[in-house]
């Protein structure tokens, strides 16, 4: 059976600097996978590559068996892969509600802009990413109302500028924004970073309800305990490579230690 998402020998570069050296991970439908690793291990880079912010070769990333590594970020999002980016990255000129709405801006199907782009691509012989957007239609459980039910505080603050909120509330907006497109795959990059433990607990409390709606999840987490608690499987990365893969109940602290800091440590 093909995995929902798979990377095969994924490489990534920032200019001349190579940040990923052949990363292989898989995500099955309905699964939650955690990616851990020290600062600079390449976790965010992996997320950027999957979401198309960094382009890679077509068949280094497979979505339900289709090569998507060459596609731009917006097309990948339209295929049902949404991201909660590191550092939350809310839009400062948008209110909380607008930040959420913009996550649902794309409602499936080909709009006029897509048609013009396709025509233009045909005329100029360029690539036509719109044709690769797949048939994910963006409908499902999540809407403004259900996101507000998930994080009630956001309903009260709906008219505030997104960046006028506390760190935890901003994180909720960022998660809600990604959910608004009803993704099949949700990528969360360090959603607990810089937050107080109670706030982290609140945010992680939302995870089971997200999974109930059928989304598969990849979380990037520095907090190993948290990662092991929520994930079905864990990958550990170091210096741009996967150094460990396993189930939380089968891997030992020593394994993790070695995978995290290198065998010599």
């Amino acid at each position, binding site marked *: 059976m093909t995995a929902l998402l798979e990377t095969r020998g994924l490489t990534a570069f920032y200019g001349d600097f190579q940040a990923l050296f052949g990363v292989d991970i898989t995500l099955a439908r309905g699964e939650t996978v955690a990616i851990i690793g020290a600062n600079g291990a390449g976790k965010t880079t992996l997320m950027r590559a999957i979401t198309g912010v960094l382009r890679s070769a077509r068949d280094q990333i497979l979505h339900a068996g289709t090569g998507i590594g060459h596609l731009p970020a917006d097309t990948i*999002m339209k295929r049902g892969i949404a991201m909660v980016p590191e550092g939350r990255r809310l839009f400062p000129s948008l209110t909380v509600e607008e930040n959420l709405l*913009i996550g649902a*801006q794309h409602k499936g199907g080909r709009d006029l802009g897509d048609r013009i782009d396709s025509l233009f691509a045909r005329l100029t012989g360029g690539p036509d990413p719109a044709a690769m957007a797949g048939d994910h239609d963006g409908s499902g459980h999540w809407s403004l109302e259900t996101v507000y039910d998930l994080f009630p505080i956001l309903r009260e603050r709906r008219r505030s500028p997104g960046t006028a909120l506390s760190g935890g509330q901003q994180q909720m907006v960022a998660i809600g924004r990604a959910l608004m497109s009803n993704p099949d795959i949700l990528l969360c990059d360090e959603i607990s970073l810089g937050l107080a433990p109670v706030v982290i607990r609140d945010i992680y409390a939302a995870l089971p309800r997200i999974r109930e709606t059928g989304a598969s999840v990849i979380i990037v987490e520095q907090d190993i305990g948290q990662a092991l608690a929520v994930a079905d499987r864990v990958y550990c990365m170091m210096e741009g490579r996967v150094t460990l893969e396993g189930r939380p109940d089968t891997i030992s602290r020593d394994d993790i230690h070695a995978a995290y800091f290198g065998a010599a440590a």
Partner: protein
Amino acid sequence: MIGLDTLVQGVLLGGLYALFAAGLSLVFGIMRLVNLAHGDLIVFGAYLILVVVSVLGVNPFLAALVAAPVMFALGWLLQKVVLNRTLGDDILPPLLVTFGLSVVIQNALLESFSADSQRISMGALETASVDLGPVTVGVLPLITFASAVLVIVGLNQLFYRTAIGRAFRATSDDQVTASLMGIRPDRVFATATAVAMLVVTIAALYLGTRANFDPSAGPARLIYAFEAVIIGGLGSLWGTLAGGIIIGVAQTVGAAINPEWQILAGHIAFLLVLLVKPRGLFPQGGGR
């Protein structure tokens, strides 16, 4: 004598300058691109309307309606094919490319229409006037001013009330994150320039009907537009209207003192504002 009449004329002239400026401001606000060919595009629009008027024999307002979709498409293509390639951290490429474009448009117009000055005829409307209490004002300047206000209201609605406007603001904040939301920045930019060209068409209509124009009229319009934007403060469309009014009033007052001082007075007003309030009168959306 600087009477009330002069002031009112100046305010109304400011409406025209705000129309020149609105498109420039829109494009800068979304993609930080300053289009040095903006004035030439306005002049190009005026010629387009002129051609439609003489070929179809219709009234200029109708002709502008015909020209608008053409201008919209041109703006979209210009951004998609040329200007998107110049965007980035370096400010030189967009400046130099649009400067080159300005030279090209001016000379293409010169070659097609000669250097003779032209005017789009409005018939009786050109001389019509109404009494507003103590002053008598031309109907055409009044319509121009009203159009400027409508354009600004419309652009604000577009910006703050529609999904496209949301995408404009989000892309202007953070292109990468916007693309994670399914927004394609180059398409947003193309749309923004296309919309700006609609505003340019409206500006062109009044440029062409209120006074003579010729192929070299563009740079001066760019400069007035720019002055209005800076005086108003970046990112504030109402501020831009205020900026246009200040330039307009300064020009009519200058002209009332000595006809040769009209243009100079506008520039000096701009420099004074720049000296006293370098960030403009309503910086950072303060007048929204």
